[in-house]
């Protein structure tokens, strides 16, 4: 993909993000933040894309750490968000 296409996607994503997220109420800002924690765990993909062709112990070690970090974000982020959102209940 060329740079301009990527920038186009980036800018459009920024506008969609601003539009969607500005509708999230204060009440849910903490779960929003932990959900976005989980979403930036998508850096995991970077580790996956590079590790197959990486050579040498150091590069592989660094990528395993990066994959572990990304997984912590994804697994921990979605789980803790779910735990929080479960607590937001209507009046019975």
């Amino acid at each position: 993909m060329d740079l301009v296409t990527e920038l186009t996607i980036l800018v459009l994503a920024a506008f969609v993000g601003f539009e969607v997220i500005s509708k999230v109420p204060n009440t849910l800002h903490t779960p929003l933040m932990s959900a976005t924690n989980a979403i930036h765990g998508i850096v995991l993909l970077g580790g996956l894309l590079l590790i197959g062709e990486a050579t040498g112990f150091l590069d592989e070690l660094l990528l395993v750490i990066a994959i572990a970090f990304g997984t912590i974000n994804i697994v921990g982020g979605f789980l803790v968000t779910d735990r929080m959102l479960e607590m937001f209940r209507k009046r019975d």
Partner: protein
Amino acid sequence: MYTASFLTDPDFIRILYIVAFSCFIVGLRLLNHPRTARKGNMIAAVGMAIAVIATLMWDFVGDYWLIAIGIAIGTAVGIPAARSVKMTAMPQMVALFNGVGGGAVALISFVEYREALDHGGNPALEQLIPILFAAIVGSISFWGSNIAFGKLQEIIPGRPIQLPGQQFINIGLLLVAVGCAVAIAAGTEEQLLFIVILLSAALLGNMFVLPIGGADMPVVISLLNAFTGLSAAAAGMALDNVALIVGGMLVGASGSILTRLMADAMNRSIANIMVGGFGGVTIAAGDAGDKTARSTDAASVAMQLAYARKVVVTPGYGLAVAQAQHTVRELADELEKRGVEVSYAIHPVAGRMPGHMNVLLAEADVPYEQLKEMDDVNPELPQTDVALVIGANDTVNPEAGMPIIEVGKAGQVVVLKRSMNTGFAGIDNPLFYNENTALLFGDAKESVAAVLAEVKDL
């Protein structure tokens, strides 16, 4: 084989990425209401699973056992952490998660650069620039988040730590990082320069969070959240991965919005907060002068509350510190039994991160309909009989120089307070000396329990 070729078809994988980022957007969209939020989170998680599986289908992705080790370690750390973290410790957890994400980005960009050098030199500029950006911002985010975690966890003193000439040091560090990045982009092929970038950005991350005080943490955490998202989006550009670009940018947008909202709620510019030194610096010595504050007792407060029509509880971080959420909810239940209308007025910066107080009250089974935002509750306060302020100070202080919950407009104000000390802002609170304000001194939890007992006895 036909099926195999279809599964590893790049266009098929790219379509899965589109499905994945659509799930993120829909998921975030559903976070706009407590009723749908849980489903939204699950949809985003499904999107993530699709993105990961799709990535594993590229034919050049290999070393599956190394991948398995990484994912196993991450899962083994992530699940117990998410299960056991206390809701009061959510800001620390989010800080740590921000940091981990930033760290992953920095590591990935470093490896990508090293691999490129091994394969004949600097990558093309359209790859190289995002790599350098990701390295700088990811490293700042990793180290800054660790310091924020340390402060919130009270491993590092929460008060601002400042060196002489701090601003010049920070600018110098940024110049070193950017200067090395420019040198690499201009054609220098040198791994050492890249390491200098990572290190100076790391130092900068440390230096920029150290001078920031406890009360400013909601802004810092939001900002670091935005940094991590932006660095992930940059990593996505370097790797030509649409899911990574969109996912990262959504987080960048979210973090930016929250940073802005938090700064607005404190009526301070983001730059002003970054300069630091605010939280904990005493401006006025809380000198009461000839003003006198009226103190009250639990029995009188119980009478006021029980015979009111409408009560607004205004909690601050002091409520969470005293772990009084459950007792407050019991008091509210008791009052509602008597026909009193109870709601909670939540300031955007109540707590240590955006929305923190809402989660703490939700945990104490307060229904979300009762959790009201500042702008919704302020017009209702003149029709409120009693405003009960618990462990809040700056967020109700008319002199704090920021938008506040205007409790002074309620018929009566009862402030539960540990002592006459000033809040984070270090500004004496004139609210306490109003004619319609009464103060109930003591530990928030014990005071609320005493009031509750009195209400039950009425």
